């Protein structure tokens, strides 16, 4: 029997009942919550599904013995849907330019989920590895068996999602990205050098998108937030007009605010590109990540007559002009009086970003919003960040602490 075969009258009746149940509920949610209600909420929000009565009882007991709530939260996090639903959907929007959650599971999301899962594994996974580690997670099992990882398609992960393979056991941490993505170990940079990240952020353009979305996704700051016109503009490429539409005030008051810092950092991506056939595959769906050591991608040199006196990228060096000025507030590690830090390549640049206070705060805010659907107060945020950092950047602690924090009164 299909849905269509249900008598219309029945459908109408059950809708009515559903609505009635909803109305009844509104009367009871405002009441103060007891331990059982708190446990239920924690479970709901961590696993995305309701607990069984047995699990609920176990959590109530755990909350009475562990005042931090972490033991109780761990019970909820044992549910496969914690990883397969809650965590996956928190990360999926971070793996595509449209920032949509309705996006196929992929190697970037898998690696992020794996880093959460193994936050308390042996050895524990430091979530900062998401930005600079030589790390990738692939799938295992499946019936039929999963297709092998491919540099030119996402079938491996799409099938994993289709079969709803539990990530608790079906995700395997690989020793290195290199056999999978082809990127040399020294050039790997966490999930940002996975196929999906490259497909999303190294596609066409000038690679600046990679920096913008790294800021958005991992520092919770868009370019507008970090705009500072007083930074030294010597790294701005030739492709940026200094007089858009014949009006240089636009450049001097707007463009330079982002480009001065951004172009300085985005030099780190100079050897990366998303390689695809622009004629047969204009969207780049079947492309692959390429890395050419020592060879600046031509996209860095295009439109070089727009401002012929601009910077010419000659290597993958980067410079961080945001350590000072307004963006010192991002909380750079070991920030002293130096004007700027410098380095070469994506790994070191992303280490610079991952070690900011903003990175830790961003993860805390994201997790808190995922499990509490709200933003933390400054006090709660401080506690979350502190626990996160002292716990070795273990994301599970953030989930547990956040869920416990908003468990209700």
């Amino acid at each position, binding site marked *: *029997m*299909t*849905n269509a075969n*249900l008598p219309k009258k*029945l459908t109408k*009746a*059950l*809708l*009515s*009942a*559903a609505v009635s*149940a909803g109305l*009844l*509920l509104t009367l*009871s949610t405002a009441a103060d919550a007891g331990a*059982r*209600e708190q446990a239920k909420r924690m479970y*709901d929000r961590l696993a*995305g*599904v*309701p607990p069984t*009565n047995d699990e609920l*009882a176990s959590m109530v007991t755990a909350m009475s013995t562990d005042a931090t709530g972490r033991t109780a939260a761990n019970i909820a996090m044992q549910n496969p849907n914690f990883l397969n639903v809650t965590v*996956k*959907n928190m990360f999926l929007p971070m793996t595509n330019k449209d920032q949509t*959650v309705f996006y196929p599971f992929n190697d970037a999301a898998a690696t992020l989920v794996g880093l959460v899962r193994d936050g308390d594994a042996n050895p524990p996974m430091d979530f900062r590895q998401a930005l600079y580690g030589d790390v990738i997670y692939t799938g295992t099992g499946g019936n039929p068996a999963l297709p092998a990882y491919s540099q030119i398609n996402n079938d491996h992960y799409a099938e994993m999602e289709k079969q709803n393979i539990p990530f608790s056991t079906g995700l395997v941490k690989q020793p290195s990205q290199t056999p999978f993505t082809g990127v040399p170990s020294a050039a790997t940079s966490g999930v940002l050098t996975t196929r999906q990240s490259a497909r999303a952020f190294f596609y066409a353009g000038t690679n600046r998108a990679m920096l913008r979305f790294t800021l958005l996704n991992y520092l919770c700051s868009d370019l*507008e937030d970090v*705009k*500072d*016109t007083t930074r*030294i*503009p*010597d790294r701005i490429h030739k492709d940026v*007009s*200094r*007089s*858009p*539409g*014949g009006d*240089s*005030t636009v*450049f*001097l008051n707007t463009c330079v605010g982002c480009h001065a810092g951004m172009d300085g950092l985005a030099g780190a991506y100079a050897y990366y590109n998303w390689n695809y056939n622009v004629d047969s595959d204009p969207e780049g769906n079947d492309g692959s990540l390429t890395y050419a050591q020592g060879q600046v991608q031509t996209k860095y040199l295009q439109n070089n*007559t*727009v401002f*012929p*006196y*601009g910077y010419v990228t000659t290597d993958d060096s980067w410079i961080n002009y945001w350590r000072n*000025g*307004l*963006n*010192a*507030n*991002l909380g750079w590690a070991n920030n002293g009086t130096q*004007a700027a830090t410098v380095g070469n390549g994506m790994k070191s640049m992303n280490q610079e970003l991952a070690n900011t206070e903003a990175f830790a705060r961003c993860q805390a805010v994201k997790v808190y919003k995922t499990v509490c*659907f*709200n*933003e*933390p107060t400054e006090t709660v945020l401080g506690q979350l960040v502190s626990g996160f950092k002292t716990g070795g950047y273990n994301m599970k602690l953030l989930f547990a602490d956040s869920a416990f924090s*908003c468990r209700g009164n």
Partner: protein
Amino acid sequence: MIHNNENTHMHAKRIQWLPVRLGWLMLLASLTLAGCGGGASTTPQAVTNTSSSGGGGDTYAGPAPQTQDAQNFKTQVYDNLRGADRCGNCHTPGGNAAGFGFANRGDVNEAYTSALGYVDRTTPANSRIVQKFRTGSHFCWLGQTEQSACAALLETWLTNWLAPAGGGTTTIILTPNTGGNVGTGASFPTTAPGSYTQLHGLLTQFCSNCHVPNVAQSQQPFFAVADVQSSYTAATSKISLTTPNQSRLYLRLVQDSHNCWNLSDDAIAGPNCNTGASGAVGTIATPGTPSSGSKMLAAIQAVVDSLTASQVPVAQTTITSRAVNLLTDGITASAGNRNNANVIALYEFKSGSGVTVVDTSGAGVTQSNLTLSGTAGTDYEWLSSWGVRFLTANGKAVSTPAASRKIYDMITATGEYSIEAWVAPSNIAQQNAFIVSYSSNATNRNFTLGQNVESYRFYNRTANTAVTNNGEPFLQTDPNAKDLKASLQHVVVTYSNSAARRRIYVDGVYTGDVDGTAQGALSTWNNSYALIFGNEHSNNRPWLGTLRMVAIHNKALSGTEIQQNFDAGVGQKYFLLFNISNDGAGNPVAGVPTQSYIKFEVAQYDNFSYLFNKPTYVNLSGQDPSNLRIGEIRVGINGQEADVGQVFAKVSATINAPAYTTANGQELSALGGVLPLSRGPSQDMFFLSFKRLGSGPDSNKDYFPLASTASIIKTPTAASDVMVRNFEEINATLAALTSVPRTTASIGGTSGTYTTVYQQLPPIESINGFLSSHQMAVTQLAIQYCNVLADDTNLRTAYFNNGVANSLVNFGGMTLSSASDSAFTNRDRIITPLLDRVLNVSATATNLTSQPDPTAVRNELRTMIGLLADTTSCPGGSCPAARTTAIVKATCAAALAGAPMLLQ
């Protein structure tokens, strides 16, 4: 003589200098003079050796020029001035100004001798006979209000005479300037001064809806935060200490009408930017008069006044060079090596005022001048950096058929031509916008260079019958290539009646767009048309943007020639020498040899900025420096280092051989950058400041203060405490509550219900975004889960009967094949397993207060089953057996598809 190989961006020429006792000579030799053969020349199209082009109507019958230079003078200058309706009216024997006989109508040699006394061979623009127009109200044959146009024209003729093509060199004397004192300058203290209170009050009161970190429409800079120090740190770069009315905080109000506010002390309803007693929007407000702008300016002025009251000589706070002015101290570096051999009309927009756009080509018997139409300042504006900007659809420059006739004559004679222009389109959205046309209206033309979104278009009329009178089909650059940018670009379109046909070049490069129309002669051109810039004669093809130069050639320029003209650039450029041997107070700088300079290539970039390019250390005294340290160069304007645009602030060099050579000096940076214009090129005094220079200690000025930590930390925003499950959580929850795997084909399969409706389910948890359509999808999915559960024997047995199968088809022991009314005698056998899971009803625990009262829900479901199981509702009072299953599914779905499952 010492040669160097410096190849400048400006003019692609070699620069040479040699020491002399009284000064230094810089010889500008054409780098490609040998290579620019093949017709390359800086001399315009040869003109007839008569004076008819200069007006007056008669033919020169005096003695022949005695020298080659006199011959050049005659060709380039004299013939243009000799006419009785021009200089020849007065500056000739018997005239009112016979004593200044440079236009002696009867003797070119006399005129030549006289002219030598009034020209500046190094910088023709500085020639007395040019300056006469610039500084006074001298007779101008173009009209008394067109002094600038006459000056520009005369300057061009003199330049053509004095900068000959084909192997000649122009000697430019580099006078080693001593520069002036930098003087005093205010600077922002690290801590907010007390005078900032007034401004902070305005900012926090009127700007805090956006310019703070923790609002939805948060916008940098965060100068409206409550913390005074954080606000001050963010605001300083938006305040001009030297010209307060150029402060960005003020200009945003009065120029851009940016979120002005209501005032209680004006007579205007609504926001008042600057429309009070002080005048119209865009004008400088008078502090004290009621308007948002005036109040902002007054608050800025208070800060500036307090800081300037305690200002000290800049040289005391940092290491500086001497100060110089662009126009006074700059050394003209233009006269780029353009290929003008076949130019028949040239517009350089040098006038800077008036309504005449002068054709300075000197070609032909007439000048194809254009007249600007519209209101100056509103519909068009002159650029002091040479150019005209069309601001509205009313701005255009129009010629007449008679004045344009030479273009017809000279192009149809050769059958080929090029339109060359330096343009800066205002935007990349305008369509069918005509930049340069020779036409009569929107449907009839000889040629047009136009813009359509991000493409250049080229219309050309030919005798080919496939081509319309409108020059269509047009050739355009590939829209996907986006060759047109809202930035200064060099665009050339060429046509020849050959296989090459139409071509478009952008920034010196052929775009590769192939003309799909066959070649044709230009015999169908119409000589009654007129040249027009910025629109069509019918006023329905407006183009907004800046024209910096337009040249029309009666030759299809080659790719090499076009590249040459692109390399030559556009606009007036200077070498600016900053004396670093002495500091801004005149004191010698330790460890820096005398006559040490940092040479910049400088130009006014547009009406708002300067371009500083390629700093190079040079020494003009012959003393080669040794281990001269130069670090972190910043450009200062009028006593204040610019807040933005300090491209050279990372320069760090030690001047030494072999990087340094006596001939070339040592380049410090290959980069260039734009710096904001302050008071204008005639008044702005530039200086350089350094972190380190020579052998002295580094400047201790802190250029990298850390901002206050309070400024960008976002504070949380509260949202509802109750949310709905999102799409996949709903799916997983239904799977958990029914025990049906979500991978079941009818649910998660290719055409399964979840696959079909998942994007119709709530994408996020926010309850504010929950729609009725979401509820429909939830219901649909729940029904499918219940459907699978009820139809699968194993699942339903486990679910409803604790795994004990006691009949063929059973739901808790009910026989479903019987009449439905009797099947539901004990309805709780269906309801209880559902509620245990959905509401977490447990015999060993109290009911959840966060869920509905189980008894109430149970009663609702019982009632629903009773209604559905009533056989009287079935036809003939008898329900089919399948109805029993349907009722179970409905009960299941009613329990699952509601808020108890959905909310979390």
